[in-house]
């Protein structure tokens, strides 16, 4: 195996004064107090690190703006560790405010998890905190601040843990591709602006001329009917992202589209790209026109390889793919935002002088019945006998379950495309769709009920709305939320190429853990867009009680998205094993839940302590879409149910 690690080309903005500084463990005083940050992440290897968090200016848009950086770089250095080792990180805070680093997706003692208020008190100004923990996993992860809005201003970086055993997927080159969003605006200002005028950043609202066009194309009656629901509900059809390209620049490894981050390859090589969505708020649709990608891991965990062309990557998710470009040409890494207000872009090229075309942004997709949680009502052929809707196999009707091998794949480069994989996918998409507790494929277990916790009222079904969902903080509740694991999602449904979905994926080595939970906790994702309030079950974090899990219990978490937005939901410290149906699981740390979707996953509560559980959209988390999960010793009376678990 030849593995070369070419560092991303670092682009010093005005940082020549820094000269040949050591970017490793030691830092020169000049760098420690550098006012000017650099863009591009250096890679640091080993098991002992000194990380310095400080304020510096970066210039991404033509203006120097304040950023929060680790060792003076944006993104923070990519840390490269080895499974089985114990890492020690001394983190010194040079900011005038408290800071923290959370190791996203890592299994570790909760005191090392880096969430102020839960794991520890945070790292005060001038203080040094020493993180130390053994590495019990391998794969692609990331790290970021869990204090205030520091993550938005640059405190994020890639984390790669090489496996103790040889990697089954040998590659010639290996690149971390950190995607992020940058604003020249102070994030506090962004948040305050959203509270004042939540659609401030949406410049794709429907206009009078759109209505006139619809009159012409769809007829007046149909148009008015379509609009009636939106107008009645006071919702926007184009509300796909709260913060958009109006203020954001979208970055690949700290490079704007104009700066064009480049990665080298030689034709015929196998290249691993480790995509990390380190954005504060941006969901990306990723593709490399002309190249097929083969996914080998998601959220750091190995999956059975699947060949695909495009993938929606939620905030905080990571995706490892292998590409094998055969031709002597440049390829564009294209990551357009879900609301099509901008894109991040880089180039894979054998020669820096070669250029690759950058695709046009797609038109802004419009939210529909599905996103409204009205099930598959836009699938005209379906029966609608009331309650049967939630239990029906909608996936069988959805476009993504069509036989891709018979589709027109347009002018994409399909050399060597494995159509059988497409066939597997069909099977995968039809059979189940992750029905959670409502079908035979996964057993029904009792709902967790607690008189002391308003999140756990008695309930008949997962889709039932709790009383707490009726109040000023909740502007809608999904009528018929449905499984959508095999749905490529809004804006990607009509692609004539393969869009990767969760339903296509499966943990590489069979079942990572038991598929049989003991009880089920239901949480509805809720919010009020107009007031910019976000919560679980209509209860913001400030008014919520911790969710208690018993040590080593296997519990099912079911999420019902009652909002019109996507929410990447992240549970710290414990794996989230997504239920794909048929007893199959996909091991993840962050799950992107679509509007109107119902999904469930299994959690082994094998780490005692206090863990954060939240939407990874930074401003949603801040607004209250957050819970503390407490793993506590199991009460004595239930002791006999305890299972041994590694």
């Amino acid at each position, binding site marked *: 195996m030849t593995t070369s690690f070419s560092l991303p080309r670092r682009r010093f903005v005005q940082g020549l004064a820094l000269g040949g500084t050591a970017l490793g463990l030691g830092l020169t005083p000049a760098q420690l107090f550098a006012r000017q940050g650099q863009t591009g992440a250096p890679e640091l290897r080993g098991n002992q690190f000194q990380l310095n968090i400080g304020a510096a200016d970066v210039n991404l848009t033509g203006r120097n703006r304040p950023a929060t950086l680790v060792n003076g770089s944006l993104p923070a250095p990519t840390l490269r560790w080895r499974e089985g080792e114990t890492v020690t990180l001394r983190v010194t805070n040079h900011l005038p405010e408290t800071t923290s680093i959370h190791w996203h997706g890592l299994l570790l003692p909760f005191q090392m998890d880096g969430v102020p208020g839960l794991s520890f008190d945070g790292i005060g100004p001038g203080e040094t905190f020493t993180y130390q923990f053994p590495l019990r996993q391998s794969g692609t992860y990331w790290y970021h601040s869990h204090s205030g809005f520091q993550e938005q201003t640059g405190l994020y970086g890639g984390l790669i843990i090489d496996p103790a055993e040889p990697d089954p997927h040998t590659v010639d080159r290996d690149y971390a591709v950190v995607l992020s969003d940058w604003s020249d605006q102070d994030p506090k200002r962004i948040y305050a602006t959203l509270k*004042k005028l939540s659609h*401030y950043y949406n410049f794709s609202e429907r*206009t009078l001329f759109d209505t006139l066009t619809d009159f012409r194309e769809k007829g007046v009656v149909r148009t008015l009917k379509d609009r009636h629901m939106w*107008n*009645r509900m*006071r919702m926007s059809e184009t509300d796909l992202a709260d913060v958009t390209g109006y203020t954001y620049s979208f970055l690949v490894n700290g490079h704007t589209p104009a700066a064009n981050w480049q990665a080298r390859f030689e034709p015929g090589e196998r290249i691993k790209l480790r995509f990390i969505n380190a954005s504060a708020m941006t969901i990306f649709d990723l593709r490399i026109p002309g190249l097929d990608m083969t996914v080998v891991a998601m959220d750091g965990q190995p999956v059975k390889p699947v060949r695909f062309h495009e993938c929606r990557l939620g905030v905080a998710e990571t995706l490892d793919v292998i590409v094998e470009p055969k031709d002597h040409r440049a390829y564009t890494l294209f990551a357009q935002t879900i609301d099509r207000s901008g894109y991040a872009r880089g180039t894979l090229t054998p020669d820096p002088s070669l250029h690759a075309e950058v695709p046009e942004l797609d038109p802004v997709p419009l939210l529909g019945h599905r996103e409204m949680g009205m099930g598959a009502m836009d699938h005209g052929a379906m029966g609608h006998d009331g309650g049967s809707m939630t239990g029906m196999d909608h996936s069988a009707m959805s476009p993504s379950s069509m036989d891709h091998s018979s589709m027109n794949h347009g002018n994409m480069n399909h050399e060597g495309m494995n159509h059988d994989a497409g066939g597997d996918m069909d099977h995968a998409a039809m059979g189940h769709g992750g029905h959670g507790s409502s079908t035979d494929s996964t057993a029904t277990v009792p709902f967790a009920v607690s008189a002391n916790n308003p999140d756990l009222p008695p309930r008949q079904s997962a889709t039932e709305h709790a009383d707490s969902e009726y109040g000023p903080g909740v502007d809608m509740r999904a009528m018929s939320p449905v499984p959508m694991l095999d749905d490529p999602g809004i804006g990607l449904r009509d692609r004539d190429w393969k869009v990767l979905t969760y339903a296509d994926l499966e943990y590489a080595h069979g079942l990572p853990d038991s598929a049989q939970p003991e009880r089920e906790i239901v949480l509805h994702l809720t919010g009020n867009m*107009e007031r910019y309030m976000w919560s679980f079950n209509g209860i913001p974090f400030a008014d919520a009680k911790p969710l208690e899990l018993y040590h080593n219990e296997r519990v099912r978490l079911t999420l019902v998205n009652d909002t019109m937005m996507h929410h990447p939901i992240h549970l710290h410290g414990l794996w989230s094993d997504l239920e794909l149906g048929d007893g199959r699981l996909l091991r993840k740390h962050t799950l992107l839940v679509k509007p109107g979707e119902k999904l469930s996953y299994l959690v082994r509560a094998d780490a005692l302590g206090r863990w954060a559980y939240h939407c990874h959209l930074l401003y949603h988390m*801040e607004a*209250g879409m*957050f819970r503390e999960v407490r793993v506590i010793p199991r009460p004595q009376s239930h002791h006999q149910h305890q299972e041994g678990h590694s």
Partner: protein
Amino acid sequence: MKSLTITRGALTALLALFVTTSAQAMEGVPARFGQILVDQLEARDADDGTVAAWSANAWYGGDINKLYFATEGERLMDRGGETESLETRLAWSRAFAPYWDWQLGVRRDWQPDDPNRDWVSVGVMGVAPYFFETEANLFLGESGHSELRLEAEYELLFTQQLILTPEVEASLYGKEDRDLGIGKGLATVEAGLRLRYEIRREFAPYIGVHWEKKFGDTADFARDHGEDASDTMLVAGIRVWY
């Protein structure tokens, strides 16, 4: 004096209610925000000369409870300038439904020549289906005076930045107030049509038409003073917020 007492008492109660605003944010610090919106600051080409008119509001608070302030007024710009009307209102605003707040407050009308008028106000404000910004307030004043005021506004997007705003406002009174030339029943209806261009979301110049009509006894009182019962004016102004 009596009016002062009412106002002071109501203010104290209002501030006491406001400090109970619920806490927010992970750090346990209550997250509070504020906005100042000058919705209309305009020159009107009226019958008796150029009139400066404004309508502005501000709020401060959390998601559920807010302290709300509103002011509107008109000032004659010709002949040395004279404030024709000035109204201020301070209220506790509380969200009770996804799109609706109720408001409890006090209002003072500052009269240049006559005694000030004080009112206690109770109302609802919010977004009705079809995105109509709606406000309804009942004002209860001294000596049994009362006013019901209904307002609605709509935003029609020509483009993302060019926005037409039709609005309408009606005032009904429970009792005649001769000093102010107001009769019982429907007294005034105002309607406006303003076209603004948002250079930024926060800053938009506009032009438009403003129409006012007095009804019933109120119209008669106006005619007795040699004024017209209705007036249509061209307006130009700016809308700004922070």
